[in-house]
């Protein structure tokens, strides 16, 4: 049987969810017998093929216009989209900046932090993505088929979700696999 194709990408992240995915440890040997991992931010190929993949995983919240495009691209190219981690599912820690004006946030980050040398400016290059006023969860910008919350989600939850999907079932997270922290 043809392997299930999978890709992942990250938005406003800390990469904790990627670390948690890798925490499936030696189970990855079993995984790659059934799943072909086409592209991830931590492997050679960074983008899924235009023909699309079966499963797309997004981590992180949608904070700037570039991340919105990434989310839309993955949604388009994945038959089933998984939002992995509290930031992708709820907006997570990233939403802390929703209480402040983006200019306040940029000034704090680039000018005012205690360890920043004086005389710095907020970078304004047109190549840098623009912050949205509010950070959003992935399901606020595209349709999401499966949510796996957690900060990060336990490796067991990720493993369970993938193996349930491979068995043709919709995973339902309960007990220790469902966590918001």
């Amino acid at each position, binding site marked *: 049987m043809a392997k299930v194709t999978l890709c992942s990408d990250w938005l406003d992240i800390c990469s904790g969810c990627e670390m948690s995915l890798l925490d499936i440890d030696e189970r990855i040997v079993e995984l790659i017998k059934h799943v072909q991992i086409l592209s991830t931010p931590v492997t050679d190929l960074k983008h899924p093929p235009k023909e699309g993949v079966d499963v797309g995983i997004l981590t992180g919240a949608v904070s700037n216009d570039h991340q919105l495009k990434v989310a839309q691209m993955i949604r388009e190219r994945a038959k089933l989209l998984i939002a992995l981690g509290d930031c992708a599912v*709820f907006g997570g*820690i990233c939403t802390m900046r929703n209480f402040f004006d983006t200019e306040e946030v940029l000034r704090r980050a680039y000018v005012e932090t205690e360890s920043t040398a004086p005389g710095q400016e907020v970078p304004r290059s047109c190549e840098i993505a623009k912050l949205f006023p509010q950070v959003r969860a992935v399901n606020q910008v595209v349709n999401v088929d499966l949510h796996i919350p957690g900060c990060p989600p336990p490796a067991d939850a990720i493993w369970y979700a993938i193996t349930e999907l491979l068995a043709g079932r919709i995973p339902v997270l309960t007990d220790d696999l469902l966590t918001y922290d």
Partner: protein
Amino acid sequence: MANVNVTIDEKAGAVPGGITVLEAARLLGVDIPTLCDHPAIAPIGACRICLVEVENQRVLQPACTFPVSEGMTVHTESPKVLDARRFVLQLLFSERNHYCMFCQMSGSCELQNLAYRYGLNHWIFDRPFPRLPVDASRDFFAMDHNRCILCRRCIRACDQLVGNGTLGLKHRGASTMVIADMDVPFGESSCVSCGTCLQVCPTGTLMDRASAYMGATKEITRVTSTCNLCSIGCGVELVVRGNRVIRVEGDWDTEPNKGLICEIGRFHLLFDKRARMRQPLVKALGTTGQDGLVAASWDEALDKVAAELAAAGAKACTVVSGYASSETAAAACQLPGDKMLMEPAANGASPACLDALDEADVVIVAGSDLAENHQVAGFAIKRGVRHRGARLLLLAKGKNGLDDWAYHKWAPDQADKAVAIAREAQAPVIVYTADNEALAAQLGAALPDAKRVYLPAGGNTLGLAAANIAAFQANDATAYYVVAGEAKEIPPDLRVALEKARFVAVQASFREPWEGLADVLLPSPLLFEKTGSVTNAEGRTVQIVAAVKTSLKAEDQVVKELIARTHR
């Protein structure tokens, strides 16, 4: 009221008429989830989590307030109910800023538990991210409004259980906020930091500085014990992790406090900044130790104390604080010389029944400030004033913590004015401490039907009195042995006596306030570290149970070893 027959989730039974569906469900063994409900507080149907399907009702009804009726059939987990419950949870989570990943309540949060129970794994509504404050103006605990679900348990507890009524609400709808007094910072309000609101808060809104992030429900153990910091002897639950007490809670199931404790019992030991006594200290001449005190072995220290006490013979004197257990008191009786109480005690006062305060229509407080000591008794009086129309007559000079609840306040020499009012009362009560014994006697003579509530100073004062340890009297003792426990202050009489004495040894939990006075300091376990019995103000013997293990010698053990050496 006559029983009615109800059926809840296929469980049929007869339940008392007039109770709520929630109470009936509990009687029949059906679990209906709740958030704003609390067994000690009257229900208000605020959170809507307990909505259930009642046959023949047009809409779902909140089980916590809906009364049962004959033949009622209730479904508590039907598809309609589950939909509604998930909807309510979605609304609760969407309204404010609920971040489990950095909340100290994660793992112990009633809101989170419900979300897990109903399998919520994403939010369906956009969130407004209101900018809400954190009030950290109180010494021991803070309030983060971002996590508040407006269940009003804190407001109701402060009003109904403590009688303080500090908390309330401002604005309406999504702008509703819990406030203190007329919207002042909690630390500047009429709040007495009893922490009852903290104890009943279902979410991480109210958090105490000692136990935050120190362990969630699955990681902690609870030990039932008794507080011995005053003579009321409130039942407490000590929350322990890794051999440390991280939090003290009132035990809802014990008398006389029924779940309430005061700021002192809840916080003072956890936040005490004094240096703990960990090993014996002996004053040595010409040394560089602090106050001349240097570490010594137990043998050295005990031998020295024993020798001094034995040599002083009849001129030795043992002073025992109410912080000591009855077992320690019994042992201390075998030391040479006189035995005395550290705290003042009244003569011939009989144990009080604190329930009298919950039935009284007039309470005369003779002199004491019940917002300083014996606060839980003060709560009972405040409840009576706020909810039963009880009248508080304060006979005190100067500012008193219960001034705002007093019907009248007079100086103690105008007791006859209080008597005139109390004479007309159905259930008058006189509350007094040892310092006001004479005034209380005067009142008691004028009001023979009044119940008398004597609140001994110190924790186990009645237990010590039962061991025939008499009130402190200045004498010509030359060697003193003080079993001080956690005592913070030295009574002026005792201080004078200790300064005059030739030799002073103290068995204490903390170095302060004994450093300048003691020739020998012996470490004593803290309240949380010892097991023993105490007799509370109601005359009942209750147990202090050690919640943590310590390598320190047990409190009575130190005394026993001392006695063994004095008899050599």
